[in-house]
């Protein structure tokens, strides 16, 4: 029986460039949302500049977006909370329908203005209403869509930069997480002394990498 032992499993690196899943309008909305979920502050960029929208875009285009590997056979029946997610929507479908629902909701309630045209305070107000279950979308559960965002945006902020978020390791630098250094034998005994070295990504560090002139 033919088989290939030890297939390589090296990771793919996400590169900057055009949106792969989102339309331009969707991407603009997502960039606004991720900047409300993780707002910029004087020390650390917000979700947008950290690449959280790019991260989600690449994830939705990939296996996560299509729910690859998950159990997808029916019948689909609504169960108890304890029985876990039973929606037939893939994450890609949830975002597509959720973003459309958000756009319709904002325009209907703000004189035709979409989410990105609202002030930061108004945007926070909309998201808080969705979080509280006070908003209904036509095609998907609005609260479920927001829960997905609350899972995916911090993942973009804190996952390895090779996935498109955590740009320049800003999320890791904010908290002092050293990334994939992988060897702390020199620090295990240094109790209550903050680890001093900056983070390293699977892609190394920019200052270790030569630039094209």
């Amino acid at each position: 029986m033919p088989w290939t032992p030890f297939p390589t499993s090296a990771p793919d690196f996400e590169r900057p460039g055009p949106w792969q899943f989102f339309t331009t309008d969707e991407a603009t909305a997502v960039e606004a949302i991720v900047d409300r979920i993780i707002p910029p502050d004087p020390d650390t960029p917000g979700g947008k500049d950290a690449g959280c929208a790019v991260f989600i875009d690449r994830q939705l285009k990939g296996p996560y977006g299509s729910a690859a590997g998950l159990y997808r056979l029916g019948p689909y029946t609504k169960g108890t909370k304890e029985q876990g997610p039973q929606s037939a929507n893939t994450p890609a479908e949830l975002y597509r329908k959720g973003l459309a629902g958000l756009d319709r909701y904002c325009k209907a309630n703000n004189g035709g203005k979409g989410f990105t045209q609202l002030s930061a305070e108004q945007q926070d107000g909309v998201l808080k209403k969705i979080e509280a279950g006070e908003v209904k979308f036509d095609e998907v559960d609005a609260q479920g869509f927001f829960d997905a965002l609350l899972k995916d945006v911090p993942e973009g902020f804190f996952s390895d930069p090779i996935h498109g978020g955590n740009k320049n390791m800003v999320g890791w630098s904010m908290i002092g997480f050293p990334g994939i250094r992988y060897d702390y034998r020199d620090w295990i005994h240094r109790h209550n002394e903050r680890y001093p070295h900056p983070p390293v990504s699977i892609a190394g560090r920019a200052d270790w990498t030569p630039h094209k002139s």
Partner: protein
Amino acid sequence: MVRKLPAKDVVIVGLGWTGSIMAYELADAGLDVMAIERGPWRNTATDHPPGYAADELRYRIRHELFLRPEQTTFTFRNKMSQTALPIRTWGAFMPPNGVGGGGVHWNAETWRFLPTDFVLRTHLTQRYGAGFLPDDMTIQDWGVTYDDLEPHYDRFEYLCGTSGQAGNVKGQIVEGGNPFEGPRSRHYPNPPQDQPFGATLFAKAARDLGYKPFPQPSGNMSRAYQNPLGVRLGPCTFCGFCEWFGCGNYSKATPQTTILPVLLRKPNFAARDNSEVTRINLDASGKRATGVTFVDTGGNEWEQPADLVILSAYTIFNVQLLLLSGIGKPYDPVGNSGVIGRNFTHQTISDVVSFFDPAKFAFNPFIASGSIGMCIDEFNGDNFDHGPHGFVGGGYMGQVQTNGRPIETAPVPPGTPRWGAQWKKAVKENYQSALKPGTGVHGSMYSYRDVYVDLDPTYKDRFGRPLARMTIDFHDNELKQNAFLTDKFAEIFQAMGARQIVKEYRKGPYDVTKYQTTHLCGGAIMGTDPGTSALNRYLQSWDVPNLFVTGASAFPQNPGYNPTGTVAALAYWAADAIRNRYLKNPGQLINA
């Protein structure tokens, strides 16, 4: 068309820890052994080198090393009156996949069970009276004792190079170890791992409160080690990417780092990966296995005939395969009859998250190994008098913080919004000064009449076979146990000087989305009576004597420790019985 392969002496279903142990032992006895594994081959150098093994998104969040639910999953309900629905994405536990099984991505917490755990019903009945146990609790004695298993525990610990501090060597209590453990014949092969700040503070506070803390026994190497098979492991570097991940340093005891390099050199051993066994075949009498049928990735069906079948898949898949193969009488909870699916259990885990003053505490939570930490065992098993408390069971508890990976481990104090500027600020402020044990309170789950596994009437796997259905909920006994233990655990963090403590009690109903451990147990249990157990004390099927079933599916109930040490010791114990008794006279080893 099913194609028939040349017959083997032994076919092994699943090449994880117990499959590897069985394969080695039986190949070493001169038998021709074929192992069939559902998942892919895995190897340190190609699958998890240090250059990218530490990818939290890929391995922890997206479950790269685990079984894909689309391959197969199970259905779940709390009560017999409910309709079970499929687990579409993993949550409460993580079924493994691939060569090495759960041994590839475990934390390597390597415990022994207490001597009383193996004679649980007898012991508790003698101490407290039969009326002390809930009517519907179905706990049983194992049919095997701690003393039977001691040499086999020892064998596994020396295979793995377990790092730890003995608490009882040949009956002598040793300072610094677990004084409650059963007597061991010798010390651990390696000293305990070094401990980080949080665990050290925990141990001091626990000692001040009168407990006897000890380092968690760890399958992560405290120093370089060569095992009795000649395989070498390197020292653990505290990378903080252990459970859910493969180790890039050859520092974690796995089948790959302890047995497989030697097993693969044996000419009488062969393995097929990416091949799923769909049935154990029986002869016309139904009393003898003739081998197995499996399907390869091309969808081709093959028959592998063999004289001896070792079923060593993950707990619930062992049970499912027995049910699908018509081996043993399926359990019926209404009539309280049958054995396959009976005494299914999981775990009762809870945690305490504590927040310290950021100006005074820096824990560097990312400096960790899978089984680093200091534990106490005062509230495990029957190490304390349960009389006043009205429950049985218990667990170890400890500051066992296995990681500071920021997607998973960025605790914020209660009352913090889930998003926005305040959330961001709280994450930043507390990352270095909060403690969140990976497994805080590692509580037992005892067995009940209405917690069991059978076949689902509706949902099917990709081959059209019924999924296994689990019916499971927490009972009052376990919830009381958890409340008591969690309060005791929190007192230690209070004594450490935490300024805020959050007790995350385990509460019902059982929730399949909330991760506890991967320690599903029971369903094909061992025992002394064919009326209440699927296997005899040697893990041999009562119904089909040339079938042995390894793994935690044999546990009649789940004690308050991680199971792998016992799972492996039972595999060695059964292998010993096959080599020294069964092969001389193949047939039922016990006359029930």
